[in-house]
């Protein structure tokens, strides 16, 4: 699975890194960012999907 964040749509709710802290992190301003290259291990896939579903701005994509 691969995840990405649309930086133009993210407004910094922070729910992705609260929901899936092994997949996402926060930057100094509170915007979400993808950890590593965005490749998600099978063990973190559920959290990644939940993070995408919980994003109020629909800025998080998790697919594959």
């Amino acid at each position, binding site marked *: 699975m691969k995840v990405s964040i649309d930086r133009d749509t993210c*407004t*910094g*709710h*922070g*729910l992705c890194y*609260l929901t899936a802290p092994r997949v996402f992190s*926060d*930057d*100094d*301003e*509170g915007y979400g960012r993808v950890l590593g290259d965005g490749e998600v291990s099978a063990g973190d896939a559920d959290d990644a999907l*939940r993070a995408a*579903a*919980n*994003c*109020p*701005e629909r800025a998080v994509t998790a697919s594959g």
Partner: protein
Amino acid sequence: MTAGTAAGMPLTLNDLPMPEHRDTAWRILHDHGRLIELDNGFAATRLDIVEAVMKNPEVFSSKEAFDSLGSPVPLVPIAFDPPEQTRYRRILQPFFSPRAIRPLEPELRRQVIELIEPIAERGECDFIADLSGKFPIQVFLTLFGLPLDMRDQFIVWKDAILEMSDASSAGVPEASEDGMRKAGELFMYLSDLVRHRRGAAGEDILSQLLRAEGDDELTDNEAVGLCFLFILAGLDTVMDALGFGMERLAGDPACRQEIVDNPAIIPAAIEELVRLDPPAPFVPRVTTREVVVDGQVLPKGTRVTSLLAVANRDGDERTDPYGISFTRGDNPHVSFGIGVHRCLGSHLARLEMRIVYEEWHRRIPVYRIADGSTPRVKWPRGTVGLQSLHLVIGQ
């Protein structure tokens, strides 16, 4: 259904049973239609329309939408649109990020414990007057490097301003004279504060903001407007969210027990409680041009209100939307708003709520609403919250 709530007829917010039956009030609005006529404008009750409105500030402007808040200075940045709003946002956002506020946690936790311990000893409280009405003001004072003994003075000032804005939006100007005087006092206090903090070396948020240079430099008026906004947006909202949350927990022993048994569930509980009871559930915008929304033509200058509590109960988006569950895996809600005006203080609000729920349930696992008392929502007003919440500790 009465004639006033028949589908298609304009609704009046003040007629809704908000004080004691807010879930019913939200359901009436939901069942009335997707985009409904409400008071002197329209209101969106479904998530897709709320998203379309709140993510398009060019057409749905904030600029004229906040006239009734009664501030003597422009409310930076909620009463602005991009690009001005973008500038304020860029200046402010770093101070309210999770990283920036995390260091405050130990001090805020200490303050919460100090407020809860006497309640635990006494065995009863008015949660609003004794805890949720006090703590957010202390947080503001802490952030701004002001002495905590200013708390009760700030409560008087803040209440006066909010009452004034309610009175002016209800068209009762004479009721707001006392409020005007107190708003003037607060304005003077904040203006003096801004003057003293400019050029000062303090580590409080205001001193840091006033040190910004170049494009980010704030005028005195902008800085005072920001202080007003922090007071109007950051104090009663947390008080109200906590009051509603504790009311639901007091009435739902099973949910409360989940928190007591497993404090790790508190962040999810906060999202669910805030989904059900956003304290600022009416987000106003005014159209800048004619626009078609959900098949209806709205002329320029139309007020369009996003009803966040109703959008959060959109049955297309989740199952059992009026029920309470801390184990919804997916629980997207718009209680902190969406789009460019997403609540700047959401991370701070979540931190405040988490500390209160953690420290309260650690000390007071069993409590109920006092016999003979019925929590009532202050109504009508722009933000909603309980007037009081009398709790008795123990069975």
